[in-house]
């Protein structure tokens, strides 16, 4: 996996995740009840991430970034299919726990890849550039999605994001064959 492909891949998944995150709150509002439940939903996410990081770190060194990115992409692709179907708050909690694990996979692997690909001397500049592109992807995705939600149901956003995740996994696979 070249650095350039890593960059493409990251831009795509950041777009997909930015599509759902702001609007995810709307979904929670339909399901959840109180701010305490919002707190729990996000708290569980962070907590499972914390617990998952040590294991992921170990695997990251053994398996390499590619495998983990694919795991993350397809994991998210499948997980997102459940979001539109959620009706109870406990279901949100479970999804958040799995998202916490997957999120940790992505964050850890992203940073490992950066660490391996960036020269120490100009790391600041390179990581800065890296963030420009992923952030541009995020901004475009959020704004466009806002318009899309006005026309289609909130559930469709999750399907769209799921598809993008799924395709992003394939992109990584394809690179290996080349």
């Amino acid at each position, binding site marked *: 996996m070249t650095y350039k492909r890593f960059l493409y891949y990251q831009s795509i998944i950041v777009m997909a995740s930015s599509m759902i995150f702001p609007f995810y709150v709307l979904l929670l509002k339909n399901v959840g*009840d*109180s701010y305490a439940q919002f707190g729990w939903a996000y708290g569980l996410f962070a907590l499972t991430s914390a617990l998952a990081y040590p294991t992921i770190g170990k695997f990251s060194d053994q398996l390499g970034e590619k495998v983990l990115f694919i795991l993350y992409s397809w994991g998210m692709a499948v997980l997102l*299919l459940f979001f*539109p*179907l959620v009706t109870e708050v406990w279901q949100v909690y479970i999804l958040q726990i799995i998202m916490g694990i997957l999120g940790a996979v992505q964050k850890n692997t992203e940073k490992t890849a950066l660490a391996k690909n960036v020269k120490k001397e100009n790391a600041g500049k390179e990581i800065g550039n890296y963030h420009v592109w992923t952030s541009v992807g995020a901004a475009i995705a959020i704004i466009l999605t806002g318009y899309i939600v006005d026309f289609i149901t909130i559930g469709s956003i999750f*399907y769209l994001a799921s598809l993008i995740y799924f395709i992003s996994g394939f992109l990584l696979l394809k690179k290996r064959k080349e």
Partner: protein
Amino acid sequence: MLLLLLAYLAALGSSIFVYQNKISHPVVKDKGRLLPIKVKNIQSATGEQELQQIVREANKTNDKLTIAGMQHSQGGQTLYPNAMLIDMKSYNKIVRFDRKRKTITVQSGATWNDIQKYINPYGLAIKVMQSQNIFTIGGSLSVNVHGRDIRNDALIDTVESFRLLNPDGDIINVSRKENSSLFYSVIGGYGLFGIILDVTLKLTDDELYRTRTKIMDYKKYEAYFQKNVLNNHSVKMHLARISIAPNTFLKEMYITDYVEANQHDLSQYNHLKGETIAIPKFFLGLSRYSDWGKNLFWDVQKKYMKMSDGKLVSRNNVMRSDSNFMEYDSSTRTEVLQEYFVPVNQFTSYIDSLREALKKEKDFNLLNITIRFVDKNQEAVMSYAKDDMFALVLLINQGQSKKDIEQTQRVVRNMINITLEHHGSYYLPYYSYPSKKQLHEAYPRTDEFFNMKRKYDPKERFVNLFYEEYGK
């Protein structure tokens, strides 16, 4: 690889299928939110031909129909499982306005606010409506509302005629002369006889009122009302509140009368106002959670009320409150209403009995009681005003679990028994807490009413949960 792709596509497909299924059977709730019901679909009413088409089609496919306006009734009066829900809100045009005769004909999905905005420039006002102006005319007719006005009776008093789309899909005229038996059952008929298309209402002149406020003990209220309100013909509207705050529970009252003022000044006061809702919403929020909040809210209300003493306000503006501050978003708790009618001369003893009963109910979260007056009117088959009555509206905060519902039911049935013992009755648009026996006692013509329904709608095309619960 291909297998993976296929597996994912299969998962995607089935998820979308389940999701589509979920949204194509819309779950509809009324304001009480205790009755989520899956309907078959929601049809928006656009014109009378389209409505006729819906009814005729339903006769062919044997679908059940239910009619909805703002859906503020809380006992499933607009709901029925797997029925087609006809949403009347977009059927809301002003059809005719006769300034000289002071009548207006509107489509039933129009709201009181629509009418007010239309007639205010002509110096006219509505005779009888709820205190809030957000409701549709069709819905208001179906529950035969009453309001702050004390010189007219219930809404039925102000209806000249209407057109009804009957269960066969035919349109008929209904008035006190034409199809008169339908006139008295469709008004207060909870949508069981067909779709009310357009309604001709009698209007009155917009007037300027001076607000007169007083604080008094509940024991003095009855005499005060007889002497200073009912027998003083310059008083046109009246509204009271009795304390639910622990410190003054069901003892202290404050009263607002609207007294005719010098009409020359009307033009300075007759532009329609909006309303601020943030402050009452905040205090109501506090009183939901604690006795301390209830005491505070009551004190604030009293102070606010004193400030409005002597203020001039037009009739149209008195009839323009907004109930948005009562919007309550919790998904585990909800707020329900009850309304009890008691004859004026029973008031003091009734409040004593009610206090006695409620003091024992520590978990019963009562948030507000307002009191209005309604003149005796027994035109409608389902008439609640069997006498000159005080109408007490109770706002109750409760949970949505089975246990909570049973708890409220027990208290409500007890309160209704007390009401009936004082020769009173209760209002029907609310959750089906009352027993069948209580319904028959409060409304002696109940059997006649439901028999009429089956006479005019033998196939039971128009149904709702109220009919399901009490009509069969």
